[in-house]
């Protein structure tokens, strides 16, 4: 892999940018791998990268049904934060935030991580009590989170309206300054390029049709749309389609897949300096470097794989945005779309082994998986390489639904479930 640097930009400019090396190869699947990752989104590619970089597994492949980063990685609102309530969640999400800090340097790919602060608005007494509880819990875990008065919130985010006559007036806010955003596509591409440089085969347009086990019940082969592959370790990272893929190994999952919508406005000059979220009126918003306002809406109430949601769901969010930020009332929306999010009963992810030997699963990130991409890949790679959970993801096994040790983060998640 040729390193990206100021010198490579200048050098390639001299040849009119015709000689850039391909970011990753386009190989055909080999008949045998040491490990296969099913799903070429951010989490899957990160898993492959850390398997190769930290655990020395080089004869591995990422199998992607469509194109890499074409699912939820390319459809989310790119918010990064770790202000979760419970110790288990904080450890998991803050592990990711720490990896985000120098990810661009590690991957030699600019993922445009911008720690511009995530501010969550409180509109009533319940919000105030809940957020302060989160703040104190976070501080006990060494995670930054602070309380802002309405005036301080307005100073941090000038477009915010403090109109006391608003239906849901703002009474304060919780701010995590290390939170922020990153460029979603670049995360997938950066991990893909770095993994490819370490010998990982990234195979696109290759759907896994069946995951077969031998007589002892251990994985021995995956059958794909591009031929069979002998492999003893399979990691499924298929987001909204996890139930479908795991069904091909004969397993049921505690998951339901819902459409979650996002939309962007027409591009405008820099006006919005941070990320603002409101659970109560259900809106979250930030501004991309291209100038579009990136707005997240809610999930539909029914299981669907359609990658589109109801217009009334997006409308609800835009009404909330217009009340919080009357300055945006006349902005036009440019595009909206849906992604399929796999939601667990306790709104925490599942990362670990499964009842099938050699089959591992990383799923259930629901409405907030992007922020965890590096940490998720890091601990999942450890799980696959050692056939044992990393201490950080040990509480997040599939087994917890049988033992009852749930991690009920529903109140801490950004989206009202």
């Amino acid at each position, binding site marked *: 892999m040729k390193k990206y640097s100021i010198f490579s930009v200048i050098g390639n400019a001299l040849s009119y940018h015709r000689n850039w090396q391909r970011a990753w190869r386009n190989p055909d699947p080999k008949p045998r791998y040491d490990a296969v990752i099913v799903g070429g989104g951010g989490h899957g590619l990160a898993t492959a990268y850390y398997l190769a970089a930290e655990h020395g597994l080089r004869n591995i492949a990422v199998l992607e049904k469509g194109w890499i980063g074409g699912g939820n990685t390319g459809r989310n609102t790119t918010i990064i934060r770790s202000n979760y309530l419970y110790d288990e969640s904080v450890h998991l999400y803050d592990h990711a935030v720490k990896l985000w800090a120098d990810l661009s340097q590690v991957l030699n790919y600019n993922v445009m991580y911008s720690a511009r602060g995530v501010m969550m608005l409180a509109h009533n007494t319940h919000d105030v009590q809940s957020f302060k509880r989160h703040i104190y819990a976070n501080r006990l875990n060494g995670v930054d989170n602070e309380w802002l008065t309405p005036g301080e919130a307005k100073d941090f985010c000038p477009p915010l309206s403090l109109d006391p006559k608003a239906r849901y007036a703002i009474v304060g806010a919780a701010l995590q300054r290390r939170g922020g955003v990153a460029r979603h596509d670049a995360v997938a591409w950066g991990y893909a390029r770095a993994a490819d440089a370490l010998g990982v085969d990234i195979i696109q347009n290759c759907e896994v049709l069946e995951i077969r086990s031998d007589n002892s019940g251990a994985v021995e082969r995956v059958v794909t749309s591009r031929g069979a592959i002998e492999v003893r370790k399979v990691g499924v990272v298929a987001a909204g*389609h996890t*139930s*479908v893929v795991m069904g091909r190994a004969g397993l*049921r*999952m*505690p*998951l*339901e*897949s819902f459409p979650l919508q996002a939309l962007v406005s027409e591009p405008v000059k820099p006006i919005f300096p941070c990320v603002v979220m409101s659970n109560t009126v259900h809106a979250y918003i930030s501004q991309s470097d291209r100038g579009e306002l990136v707005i997240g809406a809610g999930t539909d*109430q*029914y*299981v*669907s*794989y*359609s990658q*589109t949601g*109801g*217009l*009334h769901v997006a409308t609800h969010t835009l009404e909330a945005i217009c009340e919080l930020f009357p300055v945006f009332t006349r902005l036009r929306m440019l595009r909206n779309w849906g992604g399929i999010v*796999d939601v*667990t*009963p306790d709104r925490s992810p599942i990362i670990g082994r499964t009842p099938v030997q050699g089959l591992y699963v990383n799923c259930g990130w629901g409405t907030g998986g992007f922020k965890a991409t590096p940490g998720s890949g890091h601990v999942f790679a450890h799980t696959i390489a050692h056939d044992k959970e990393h201490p950080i993801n040990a509480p997040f096994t599939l087994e917890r*639904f*049988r*033992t009852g040790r749930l991690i009920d983060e529903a109140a801490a998640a950004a989206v009202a479930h």
Partner: protein
Amino acid sequence: MLLIRCPYCGPRAEIEFRGGGEAHIARPIDPAATSDAQWADFLFFRSNSRGPHAERWLHAYGCQRWFNAVRDTVSDRITTTYKSGEPRPR
């Protein structure tokens, strides 16, 4: 937005309804004799089908009655609705 045919009131807009999740999940008759795995399966594990999916709906802002629907989760097209207690149509 879906157009949902309530078996009691006829076709109405989705905002009149509340989704109730997968249909035809029977609570184990004797919980004390049910294993943890079976109980977890009842509480948490779902078919999450890609394709025809039987699900419960409540006509919350109408007749307030529960009923079932079969909907294709890829096209979101509802093929049939039927009253609770009736078997899933073939």
